């Protein structure tokens, strides 16, 4: 490498330096400190004990409570993801068929809530789902139920609200895939005599699959890391990983244990993202090769 090459290469680094310094000092360092913290022991009387120990991880991995906690969080995130696919894919196709003016309006309606604080949206659901709330009174008036059903502080309630909060991400992902759709192939299929349903199942859906899967990854990870919604709608009865971390840090004050749960959450999410990326890449090589 000559000196001028080095000169060329130093310009982008100089330009990135302010942001890089910020990220190094305020992201890499705190994250490393958290990883270290998770290996510290904790003593109720003396607080955080420096030195390397696996106490927290052993405590988590040997206690069925934490397995249940992670399993509950995973089930919740999986449920939200499935519902977002079932609702989001048809809605995106409906949006694509609209006239441009309506399309613009409903884009604002569907995507606009992303710009409103999740606490506000969750508060609305807290009112809607309460025992005497509108959802229960409609269900009773329609004679679907006799008594108000418990939606607040239930897993069903948390899944409904998270679906509301995260659905826009699924629609965005499917929409991006729809924009890349090659309509010629569908035309060809139809003109060769395939029915609308066959064309959709054999031509359109496979092309939308990458979008659906990237939307699913986003929705899954955001569900598993959601805090305000499970905390407000689930309360103490539906405890998930994030609310457990919050309790360890701000109520029990056992920071090392909370840090260990956080490290496991992060690893779990990385595992799911990387795993599904590899899975989809292999699958799509088969489909499109």
């Amino acid at each position, binding site marked *: 490498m000559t000196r001028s090459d080095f000169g060329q290469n130093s310009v982008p680094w100089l330009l990135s330096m302010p942001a890089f310094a910020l990220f190094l000092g305020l992201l890499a*360092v*705190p994250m490393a400190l*958290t990883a270290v913290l998770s290996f510290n022991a904790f003593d109720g009387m003396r607080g955080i004990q420096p030195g390397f120990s696996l106490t927290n991880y052993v405590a988590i991995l040997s206690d069925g409570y934490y397995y249940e906690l992670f399993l509950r969080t995973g089930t919740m995130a999986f449920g939200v993801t499935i519902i977002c696919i079932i609702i989001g894919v048809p809605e995106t196709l409906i949006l694509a*068929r609209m006239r441009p003016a309506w399309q613009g309006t409903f884009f604002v309606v569907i995507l606009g809530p992303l710009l409103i604080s999740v606490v506000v949206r969750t508060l609305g659901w807290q*009112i809607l789902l309460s025992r005497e709330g509108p959802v229960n009174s409609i269900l009773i008036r329609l004679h679907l139920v006799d008594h108000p059903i418990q939606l607040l502080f239930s897993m069903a309630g948390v899944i409904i609200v998270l679906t509301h909060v995260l659905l826009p991400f699924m629609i965005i992902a499917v929409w991006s895939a729809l924009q890349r759709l090659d*309509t010629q192939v*569908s035309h060809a299929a139809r003109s060769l005599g395939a029915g609308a349903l066959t064309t959709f199942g054999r031509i359109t859906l496979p092309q939308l699959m990458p979008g659906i899967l990237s939307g699913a990854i986003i929705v899954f990870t955001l569900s598993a890391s959601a805090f*305000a919604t499970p905390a407000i709608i689930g309360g103490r009865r539906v405890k998930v990983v994030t609310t457990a971390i919050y309790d360890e840090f701000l109520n029990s004050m056992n920071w090392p244990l909370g840090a260990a749960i956080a490290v496991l959450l992060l690893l779990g999410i990385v595992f799911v993202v990387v795993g599904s990326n590899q899975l989809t890449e292999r699958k799509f090589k088969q489909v499109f090769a």
Partner: protein
Amino acid sequence: MSNRVIGQNGPVALTFHTLLTVFILAPLIVVILVSLSDKGYISMPFDGASLRWYREILRAPELLSAFLLSIRLGIASATLASAVAMPAALAIARYRFVGRDGLMAFFMSPMMIPHVVLGIAFLRFFSIMAWTGSFAALVLVHMLIVTPFSLRLTLAAVIGLDRSAEHAARSLGASRFVAFRRTLLPLILPGVAGGWVLAFIQSFDDVTMTIFVATPSTTTLPVALYNRITQSSDPITTSVSTVMIIGAIFFMFSLDRMVGLNNVLIGKRTG
């Protein structure tokens, strides 16, 4: 995209769409309705409406100071984030260098890491550095979580740019800096401004990360609102929420004017 391929929406599709629209708007409408009630508990305003809960906001000093803090925090962190994101976007868009992809992934990583994990990492960091309760420290961590949004929009603006004006300015003898300020900057300004607004909104709305580092003197509006909601069922939460909804609608329109809402929310694919 051709409409003929997928055809028109039938009655089933339109029913589905209507129900989904109701599902999406219901929680927002119910918040606005309850905020107009004149009762001292959560109720609908149909048998007595008033602006009582809006007047109550003015009598709640902790909510007002949280609101002002959130505004100051949003402006400071969005401005600083735009300032560091702009040169970084130029570097990533215009140069091919070793570590470019890694750097981009590093700058985008706050979007992938759960905010609870970032929250505890900052809580630990603040307690070690004795930064707890510092507004400047809060600005720095908000700057970190909003930089990806600012970077993404600025990057989209730089990548989509025609460089001929800049080349003309340079060949006519303008210095690198003058060429940047007089030709490049005006062209990327809508993207930078859009990135700023999106960064402001992300900072203003964040609750999950901030709740870990907020102290009584550094409580933001969403954190104050969260605390109220979990501790009591007081209709003032709905009037505060309505003000936040109106603010979000205002920002939605300004974003739409600056860069187009579709570009912000759907995001242009960047290289």
